[in-house]
């Protein structure tokens, strides 16, 4: 079942350290962690993957966004121990060698940041958002939920709504929107 041991029905003690195997950016990594460790802390404090940021640590800012099995997820509200067997992708796993992901290139080209703290979360969220749109997922601003817009036709209103979890205190939103639109056109060109 797991490496966690429950010592019978009367047990009241808790486990202090557990062994957890995680698949991060295509690599199997073994950690010995406290069960309380969030996925975000496992990445940052135990695996030195500090691209994912701890902004609020309570699911309000989006700076910790990673992909779990291809879907954008808040790593600060996830327990590492609950992600055995899942494929986790962080911003460090996007590029192939020196070749950046189109979304990363677009953020650079459009100057989609100022201080850069929220940027990894913005990029991970934006990639997940375009993927969801490609799958035909509607949003709150979609007038008729039975007719979601195509990814190529997402309006500014749609992009803003779908990115609403990702806060930028510098207010780089106009350029972030530009970057997402540029990345979308790059991806369209590749299809």
């Amino acid at each position, binding site marked *: *079942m*797991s490496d*966690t041991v*429950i010592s*019978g*029905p009367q*047990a*009241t003690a*808790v*486990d*202090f350290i*557990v062994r957890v195997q995680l698949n991060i950016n295509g690599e199997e990594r073994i950690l010995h962690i*406290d*069960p*309380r460790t*969030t996925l975000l802390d496992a990445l940052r404090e135990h695996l030195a993957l500090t691209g994912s940021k701890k902004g609020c*640590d*309570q*699911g309000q800012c*989006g700076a910790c*966004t990673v992909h779990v099995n291809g*879907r*954008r*997820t*808040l790593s600060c*509200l*996830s*327990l590492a*121990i*609950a992600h*055995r067997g899942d494929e986790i992708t962080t911003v460090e796993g996007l590029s192939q060698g020196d070749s950046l992901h189109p979304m990363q290139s677009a953020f650079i080209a459009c100057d989609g940041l100022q201080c850069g703290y929220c940027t990894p979360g913005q990029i991970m*969220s934006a990639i*997940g*958002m375009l993927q*969801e749109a490609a*799958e*035909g*997922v*509607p*949003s*709150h601003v*979609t007038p008729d*939920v*039975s007719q979601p817009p195509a990814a190529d036709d997402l309006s500014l209103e749609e992009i*803003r*709504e*779908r*990115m*609403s*979890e990702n806060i930028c205190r510098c207010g780089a939103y106009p350029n972030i929107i530009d970057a997402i639109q540029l990345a979308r056109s790059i991806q369209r060109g590749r299809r």
Partner: protein
Amino acid sequence: MHPFSFIEAESPEAAIEALGSRPNSVFFAGGTTLIDLMKLDVLTPQLLVDVNHLPFSAITETTAGVMIGANVRNSDLAHHPAIRDRFPVLSEALLSGASAQLRNMASTAGNLLQRTRCGYFRDVNARCNKRQPGSGCDALTGVNRSHAVLGTSDHCIATHPSDLCVAMMALDAVIHTEKRTIPIGDFYLLPGATPERETVLEKGELITAVQIPDDPIARRSHYLKVRDRASYEFALASAAVALELSGDTIVRVRVALGGVATIPWRSKEAEAVLHGKPATIATFREAADAALAGAVPREHNAFKIQLAKRTLVEALYELTD
């Protein structure tokens, strides 16, 4: 966060057995509310029983309706063609709630059981009868702008935060556990003198699915949510409505309200007013007055009464326009 043990359940039976092994144990699904409240020390379970790998992840269409597995994620439910086509109010309610990331994580059963956003419930230094029975309620005389005006008691005025449950209330959803079925209208408990008891679920009872009965009325349904900002915010007031018209006459109707009550709030009073009447603004206003007739405002939330009325009128108007 307090220390805890974590166990991955391989079967529903194992999950229930594991839950019974410790006095202070909880099922763990999406975790979006649970981890948040554990970080705040509001919840301090000794054991988390992970139910994410139990076989409750399917959405099944039957002639009787749609069966939604307890582990179906909010985003998958909102996106499912059967939901979007046959029960648009469900899809709209889900999409108006939380954020895309959270909807990817949050489960259907977890949404049913999500906890209030009352700031005093979330602050372990405040008095809260829901968190610590008998300690008192600081919301009664505190900053209660976001609190409930319907279904309150002198012990608790915490608002139920869900959007999905309001839509489910309008659609007469049925909650399935491993041992019984519970109509959603019987599922939630008003706070009364025991606000710590929020549902009729017993300790260790495991939700397996939620059934949405097929009903043509649901095809013409709508969710309208009013909040302090355009996205990623809880409702100040919301309305889930469904109706069937014969000409201009309302022959069948469902009304539920969110953001203003201690539980997802079905308004039979509004439905009684609307039934058999012409679908006009005057009728909608009369129904809204009936829905909020029993409202009890506190110092900072009296505005919600008018807001909820206008929200319901607007929702009905949008649905019949």
